[in-house]
């Protein structure tokens, strides 16, 4: 047992302390964090307020516009947008909404301007020179006939690229003009809202217990989970094969076999590399959780969170269990191949069958996403070799009854027992056979003999 642990520790360190592992493990969350956090940081940087001149010959739009850009109105709008995706707000989210709205409001500073009854063209020229001189940052020219559909609102700004400010301003103006037009047409604003409310297409899946589930982002998430397990299995399977071939190629196996039992050595290798894979997945899952919760604090992004499927801790446990099942299935096949061949290149040719199996599993997982309850989905999520990739996808798409998950676990665990039995027999003979690649009949003989 002590020797087994020594092997596990050795194999684990060998994988984890490699640069490729460190980069692979940390780079992915880092990139994800960049995508999620950088916009957040940039937008929260407080710029200089934009000084705006509003020229309103009607005198009706300007007060409405200013009211819309007050912190109360901004907050109300942000809250409404967030409500579409979130039902309840946590206190911190409340705080975020408030702070975000205030920040936007502070971005606007209105400069009063007296037109002195001048012509529009003269006003425009004067305002342009103000902007050139730096006395103002932007101006808005409101047309006389607001109600006309062809009325153009001229907005000129030195900061045309400031998306946040421009967008908030455009919305506020939009609302202001619309409410003025409604008022002019004698239509109650509330009545209009009722009439023009968008159809609410509630698209949710219903699982077998009749509980509603969100299906929006589930498809994407299932695909990501399937792909992630597939890639991780392929990478770690090949890593196992490489490590086995190295010990055979360098003849270290001879020294190892004189110190510990081949079974201990092989299992130690599988467990050590498996733990390394689990470490990597663990770091990815943890950083994903952190990133998602940071995004959740952002009001602007809260809509995005609403589309993510809810992943319970139990599901994460299932994913890890099925990852491990897949790992031991494919790792023992790769260990078997590694002990048959003499070089990594030769191993590459023999790796075709397991790689093919993994690829087919991944394709099956796409079928499972589309119809998680079909007969095909049932069988491929139970079957050995396929289940490690298809079952997690099925669990995420639409969690099957527990007995199916349990059955899948038992079937695949039994497969592992059989594969390890085979692999250990090939391993202890093959590792000491130098010079030439073993043929299939030879390997068959080793299996029967040992």
């Amino acid at each position, binding site marked *: 047992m002590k020797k087994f642990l*020594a092997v596990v520790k050795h194999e684990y*360190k060998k994988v984890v302390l490699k640069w490729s592992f460190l980069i692979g493990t940390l780079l992915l969350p880092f990139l994800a964090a960049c995508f999620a956090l950088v916009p957040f940081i940039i937008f929260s940087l407080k710029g200089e307020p934009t000084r705006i001149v509003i020229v309103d010959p009607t005198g009706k739009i300007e007060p409405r516009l200013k009211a819309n850009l007050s912190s109360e109105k901004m907050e109300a709008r942000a809250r409404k947008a967030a409500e579409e995706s979130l039902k309840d707000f946590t206190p911190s989210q409340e705080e975020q909404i408030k702070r975000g709205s205030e920040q936007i409001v502070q971005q606007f500073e209105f400069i009063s301007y007296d037109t002195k009854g001048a012509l529009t063209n003269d006003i425009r020229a004067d305002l342009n020179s103000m902007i050139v001189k730096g006395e103002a940052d932007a101006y808005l020219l409101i047309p006389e006939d607001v109600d006309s559909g062809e009325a153009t609102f001229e907005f000129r700004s030195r900061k045309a690229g400031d998306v946040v400010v421009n967008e908030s301003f455009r919305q506020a103006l939009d609302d202001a003009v619309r409410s003025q037009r409604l008022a002019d047409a004698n239509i109650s604003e509330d009545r209009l809202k009722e009439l023009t409310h968008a159809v609410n297409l509630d698209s949710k899946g219903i699982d077998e217990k009749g509980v509603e589930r969100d299906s929006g982002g589930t498809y994407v998430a299932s695909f990501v989970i399937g792909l992630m397990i597939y890639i991780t299995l392929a990478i770690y399977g090949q890593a196992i094969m490489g490590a086995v071939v190295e010990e055979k190629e360098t003849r*270290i196996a*001879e*020294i*190892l076999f*004189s110190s*510990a039992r081949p079974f201990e050595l092989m299992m130690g290798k599988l467990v050590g590399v498996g733990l390394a894979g689990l470490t990597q997945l663990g770091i990815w899952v943890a950083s994903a959780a952190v990133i998602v919760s940071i995004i959740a604090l952002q009001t602007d992004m809260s809509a995005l969170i609403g589309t993510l499927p809810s992943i319970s801790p139990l599901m994460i446990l299932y994913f890890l269990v099925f990852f491990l099942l897949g790992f031991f299935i494919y790792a023992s096949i790769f260990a078997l191949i590694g002990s048959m061949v003499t070089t990594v290149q030769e191993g590459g040719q023999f790796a075709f069958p397991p790689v093919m199996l993994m690829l087919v599993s991944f394709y099956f997982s796409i079928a499972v996403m589309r119809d998680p309850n079909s007969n095909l989905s049932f069988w491929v999520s139970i079957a050995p070799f396929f289940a490690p990739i298809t079952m997690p996808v099925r669990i995420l798409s639409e969690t099957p009854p527990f007995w199916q998950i349990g059955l899948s676990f038992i079937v695949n665990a039994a497969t592992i027992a059989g594969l390890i039995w085979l692999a250990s027999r090939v391993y202890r003979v093959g590792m*000491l056979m130098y010079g030439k690649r073993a043929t299939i009949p030879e390997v068959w003989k080793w299996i029967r003999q040992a």
Partner: protein
Amino acid sequence: MAEQTVTLSVRNVSKRFGDFSAVEDLSFDVRAGRVFGFLGPNGAGKTTTIRMIVGITVPDEGSVELFGQKISSALQDRIGYLPEERGLYKKMKIVDQLRYFAALKGVSAADTERKMDFWLDRMQLSDWKKKKTTDLSKGMQQKIQFISTVMHDPDLLILDEPFSGLDPINVEFLMDVISEFKTQDKTIIFSTHLMETAEKLCKDILLINKARKVISGSLREVKESYGKNLIALRATGSEAILSDRSIVAKTDVHADETIVHLNNGADPQLLLRRLIDGGAEITKFEEVEASLNDIFIDKIRGNHDNQG
């Protein structure tokens, strides 16, 4: 007294791979505190026998007893095995490799550090501790492999061609280390083709060929049983007498002397008398023992002849 204790006892051991018989009914004892030369040509079955001793493979028939017990995982910790075909992890630091090999032999972490520093210092490789295998020369790698063989202070040391690839200075150095083990009452099994080295180091020898034992016993016994029918001769005008096949089996002409192989049972005195009578001028006439090399070649050839 220690010399009487048997460290290793191999009894009627056979190992076959399909139709090929690698070891056939082999029996021998290795006594504690002695250097045991395990000799034989390539493909004689040495590596297969050693693998059965260290517990890598199991004999088809017969038994191997080490320190009076059947081989087990715990007993493996008392063996230090340096295989003929050996290697190190290419891209791993020396210190990590030695730690791993020591851990597999059940050495505690504290002991490992102490022993590792001691041996690296002795082998003058302390500066290379943090380096990777690929940075080391072939000879340095050999010495690292030797360290991994002795770091756990084994009671039985099995060295398969330990000197291959070493320069003469390192061979000398390693010989000193091996001699030291001898004085510590450790048992050493030493496998080689180099008969000169075997002759210098070994007290007992076992020669196998084609899976079977050819000769065994102490070096002294083997040499004595082989007889003193060799004469180192320096003479002029001896050619006619030496070509007489009734006494002389064959001659090996060396640079400054001729080694005369007498026929079995031939009397050296008779040859001397004939030479004098024949008018040869003799400056050296000495009965010599067969070298291990001679015995080796003779036995293996004889073996082939018997088969042929």
